[in-house]
């Protein structure tokens, strides 16, 4: 594993009006490693992902992604990161195929890659159906395809297996799992699953870092407190 940090945060702070969503978050993630971000609802997990995805600006502290400082060099890292968010970021009235081709064009990727991805998540048969007619699990499979269309070096995965049954989870594993070789940041409400695939855990409590370290050092009591 390359030890050059893919993500480096120093004292990251972000406010929404009077409310502080993140305060003093510092972490260093090596290239190819997986960071699990744990915490209760509203702990700041999604805000952290949106800052890493260049969609939100940090209000204090330093953020560096793949060697590029944010937000100044946001443009340079966008082509290298893939975000799987709570929302699928797909147009409901377009088909899966049309959505993916649209995103592929934005990223300068050919239609061949779209075909490959649809095949790999077993969505070729339903590719022409409008997204609004698909089940949540199917939409999530398309969202995974959208996030990895351009083979990103950094995957930001917010509840990546939400709405997926075990079979669908297996289908998307080659696209977002450890085998991709990408650096991954995963948030999950299922801490045991996230910890199981993590090299590093960041526990957030009310926006503050409550735990930073390897998963084996996170004991059951600390884990419970993160979700208390």
């Amino acid at each position, binding site marked *: 594993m390359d030890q050059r940090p893919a993500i480096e945060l120093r004292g990251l702070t972000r406010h929404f009006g009077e409310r502080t969503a993140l305060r003093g978050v510092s972490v260093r993630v090596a290239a190819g490693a997986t960071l699990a971000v744990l915490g209760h609802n509203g702990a700041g997990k999604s805000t952290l992902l949106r800052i890493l*995805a*260049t969609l939100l600006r940090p209000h204090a502290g330093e953020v560096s992604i793949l060697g590029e400082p944010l937000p100044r060099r946001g443009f340079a890292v966008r082509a290298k990161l893939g975000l799987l968010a709570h929302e699928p*970021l797909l147009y409901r*009235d*377009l088909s899966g195929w049309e959505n993916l081709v*649209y995103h592929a064009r934005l990223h300068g990727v050919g239609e061949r890659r779209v075909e490959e991805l649809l095949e790999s998540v077993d969505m070729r048969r339903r590719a022409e159906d409008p997204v609004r007619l698909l089940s949540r699990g199917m939409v999530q499979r398309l969202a995974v395809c959208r996030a990895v269309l351009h083979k990103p070096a950094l995957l930001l995965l917010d509840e990546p297996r939400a709405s997926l049954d075990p079979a669908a989870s297996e289908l998307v594993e080659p696209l977002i799992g450890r085998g991709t070789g990408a650096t991954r940041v995963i948030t999950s409400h299922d801490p045991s699953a996230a910890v199981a695939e993590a090299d590093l855990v960041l526990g957030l409590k009310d926006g503050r870092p409550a735990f930073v370290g390897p998963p084996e050092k996170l004991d059951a009591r600390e884990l419970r407190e993160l979700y208390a």
Partner: protein
Amino acid sequence: MTVLRKDLLLELRTFETVPAMILFSIVTFVIFHFGLNQATIDGQLAGGVLTVTLLFAAMLGVNRLFVAEREQGGFDAFLLAPVDRSAMLIAKASALFAFLVVLEVVAVPAFGLLLLGPSLGPPLLGLIAVLALADVALAVIGTLVSAIAVNTRARDLVGPVIGLPLLIPALIATARAAAPLLAVHGSGAPPGKWVAVLALYDLVFALLAYAVFDFLLED
């Protein structure tokens, strides 16, 4: 082109915007017909009625321009792509321009049938030129206003409240430029002064929109 193609495809799938604009304009012509209590109109009155109707119909399109981006995550998806953000301004303004052209293809003949006294035939080329310049102003200012309004809770209110005052100079210039074209025994060409005002307004707002649009998409 990618964003524009997607916007046109979405409109073809949903028919949410253009049919509403067309229906609104025709209903407004009927209302003017009864409200003015005149069988036909011409000249300055005709220019004003046509321009105001198209302006209000355009606001329906302006209000819906960014709704899919806001509600279905299109903004985030676009911002995650390594493309120049002004591409969205150009695509959205082009989409709105296209919607306005379709609106006018139906609404202007309807205006000729329902309200206008003189024939539309002789001044048609001049009228197309004036409306094309007006459409640029509506498309550029509409896109700018829509991008501001879509992030507010009262977006249906904010769009017209900001957009209509900004469009008053374009409204005046369009109505004045169209008036002699719609007059009985009127001119075949629009007055140069008002065409120049409209063109200058288009240019100023196109440059302004290009300069500030990035900031509107910023967090």
